[in-house]
């Protein structure tokens, strides 16, 4: 008989702060200033998340994936990194990229559907937001391979969810990272739900951390709502990876308070009681208790932190809303460098169509606009036979660049972040 309980990997969850905010174990090496900074980041994140849902309901941003409940896992793991390390976020990891240097305004432009929304500002070591589940784990592995090749000492962190551990890419990334001993960290936020499918439907293994055993790399499960616990395990993982000892898998056990996205209705698959259990484990409340007990936080200070977060967010929303969102004309130059002839041709068609559209709009505003009717854009080229838009001569007689289209003022360079959250990590 070789199948015995002791042959199964051990399952233990690491925790420093319990649900009442009591510290058990060794305090990580963080100054009071850093502790407060981490708290400010969490409050900032939660405040934004709530604001974003309202913005979506008002039609001011697009579909949004809220992260409330996961602030400790995200803020603490990013806080343990150097700015020269690399992060590979999915769509629910905004606090990670903010702590790592991404301006909030950029995240807003992304969700507002700006042509420039996915831009990564110079010097911010983050990949663009990944939509395909677990695809970024391979990019983090490739980046870690590049770091090893270049000997630059940086660590690459793949952020993923419990659902992503079911994907083949997750296995392939862990396997390559292990075989090549790459400086990669796989940081799983097990938030219990992949849209409507619960954690126990993703994997029959008792923990996700134990998947590390198969690759012979360190793996740990940590209370993801314990900001000090997450910071502590992440810090050690970063040291391990940076020192050339290979990859690490971390499973942060947490919870998604809200829907999968603003298009999801979680009442179809879980009860308010289910949620309530986790609201009582809220990472922010827990950390606030700890800080209060240490004399670092009181009601007045907390109110000031919340007020400051709301003000910064309001400024970022104003700035993002004031910015031009770009024209269809611009996208053709974002496919290849340089833009090849077939895309230049389609780009020219778009310029003509948009110019004609603007002319019509101007005509409608001015009352009468002679012959340019609803079909003006294509009708004008009728004589050339083929489809109007490829017609060339005769199309859109006065192709003045239209305001708000091709000639729109170039968006301000994104390398000059004007909005960021609380101060950067105090180093």
């Amino acid at each position, binding site marked *: 008989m070789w199948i015995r309980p002791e042959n199964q990997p051990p399952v233990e969850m690491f925790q420093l702060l319990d649900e009442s905010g009591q510290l058990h174990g060794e305090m990580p090496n963080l100054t009071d200033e850093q502790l407060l900074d981490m708290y400010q980041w969490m409050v900032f994140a939660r405040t934004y998340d709530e604001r974003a849902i309202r913005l979506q309901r008002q039609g001011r941003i697009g579909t949004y994936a809220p992260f409330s409940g996961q602030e400790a896992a995200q803020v603490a793991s990013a806080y343990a990194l150097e700015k020269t390390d*690399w992060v590979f976020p999915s769509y629910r990891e905004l606090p990670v990229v903010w702590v790592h240097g991404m301006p909030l305004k950029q995240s807003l432009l992304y969700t507002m559907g700006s*042509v*420039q*929304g*996915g*831009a*990564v*500002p*110079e010097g911010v070591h983050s*990949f*663009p937001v990944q939509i*395909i589940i677990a*695809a970024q*784990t*391979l*990019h*983090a*592995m*490739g*980046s*870690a*391979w*590049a*770091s090893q*090749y*270049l000997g630059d000492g940086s660590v*690459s962190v793949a952020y993923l969810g419990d659902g992503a551990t079911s994907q*083949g*890419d997750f296995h*392939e*990334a862990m*396997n*390559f990272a292990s*075989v*090549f001993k790459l400086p990669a960290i796989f940081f799983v936020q097990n938030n219990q739900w992949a849209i409507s499918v619960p954690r126990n439907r993703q994997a029959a293994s008792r923990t996700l951390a134990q998947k590390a055993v198969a690759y012979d790399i360190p793996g740990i499960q940590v209370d993801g709502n314990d900001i000090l616990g997450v910071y502590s395990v992440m810090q050690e993982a970063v040291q391990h990876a940076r020192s050339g000892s290979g990859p690490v898998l971390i499973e942060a056990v947490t919870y998604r308070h809200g829907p999968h996205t603003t298009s999801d209705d979680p009442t179809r698959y879980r009860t308010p009681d289910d949620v309530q259990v986790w609201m009582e484990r809220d990472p922010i409340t827990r950390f606030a208790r700890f800080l209060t007990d240490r004399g670092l936080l009181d009601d007045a200070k907390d109110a000031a932190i919340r007020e400051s977060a709301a003000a910064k967010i309001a400024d970022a929303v104003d700035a993002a809303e004031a910015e031009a969102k770009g024209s269809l004309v611009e*996208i053709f*130059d*974002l*496919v*290849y*460098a340089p833009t*090849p*002839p*077939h*895309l230049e041709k389609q780009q020219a068609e778009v310029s003509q169509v948009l110019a004609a559209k603007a002319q019509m709009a101007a005509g409608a505003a001015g009352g009468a606009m002679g012959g340019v009717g609803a079909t003006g854009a294509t009708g004008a080229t009728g004589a050339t*036979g*083929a*489809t109007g838009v*490829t017609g060339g001569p005769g199309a859109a007689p006065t192709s003045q660049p239209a305001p708000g289209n091709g000639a729109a003022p170039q968006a301000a360079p994104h390398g000059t972040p004007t909005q960021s959250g609380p101060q950067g990590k105090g180093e």
Partner: protein
Amino acid sequence: MAMMNIIEAINDALKMEMARDERVIVFGEDVGRAGGVFRATDGLQAAFGERRVVDTPLAESAIIGAAVGMAARGLRPVAEIQFLGFIYEAMDQLASQAARMRFRSAGTVTLPMVVRAPYGGGVRTPELHSDSLEGIFLHSPGLKVVMPSNPYDAKGLLLAAIRDPDPVLYFEPMKLYRYRKDEVPEGDYTVEIGKANVVVEGTDLTLITWGPTVPLSVGVAQKFAAEHGVSIEVIDLRTIVPLDVETILASVSKTGRALIVHEAVKGGGVGAEISALISEQALFSLEAPVLRVAGYDTPYPVGAVEDDWLPNATRIAGAIQEIMSYA
């Protein structure tokens, strides 16, 4: 000049670029110790070490995903997929990731990476070793696709691909690897991506093809000229994305007739795209319908019947006769 076949030309290009540029790293299944199943990377690991010529675990998605991560960090990865038919395993990393990173990041993250893969039929392989899949990637904006047909282009296009700022798929015609040796410059040169090559000039009919069907088509064209006095212009596309539309249209405007020959399945393929471009932009030059000789719309077949499935001299000659019958 040296005499090289396609495999030797590829090997020469890799060696040259690895020596010139420390950022170039070659990896894939069996590329290191074994030098590749076709020996394309033979001797590279001995010359450049295991750090730069790397045997990976057997996982296509990870091979391409790793290249994405590396290229974004400033390296110049040259990844090999052992046979093009295996690339479906990596479709997300190619079509959703490599192809879109420049676009997704509004031009801030770019991927100078190359994916090499052999393809093409007529060599009695097991299933999924012979498929020509370029059409899939024509339909995936953000990727470039080059398909050399001779040793000179093989070297020049590979050097151009490695130096290109965007992901380039470099597909190698398996059947032509050792087909013949040509003169190839020993030094550095590139063949421009996006430029077709008129390999035979003619006035009556334009035959557009690429990869393994180029020598076949040239043979048929020469035979037709000799036996029927039909002057056929043969264009070797060399690059599938971006297509050299200008060269195609100039030729068709001159000849008034067009035939497209490719090994990939017919429906929704590169031939269909070329035919559509001709009808959109050169319809009134045409004297006859544009025809395609291609693989049939079935999975690539077994060895006993593959020679009849592939474009061959008989099928090409039949299509030429049909086109020329519109007097």
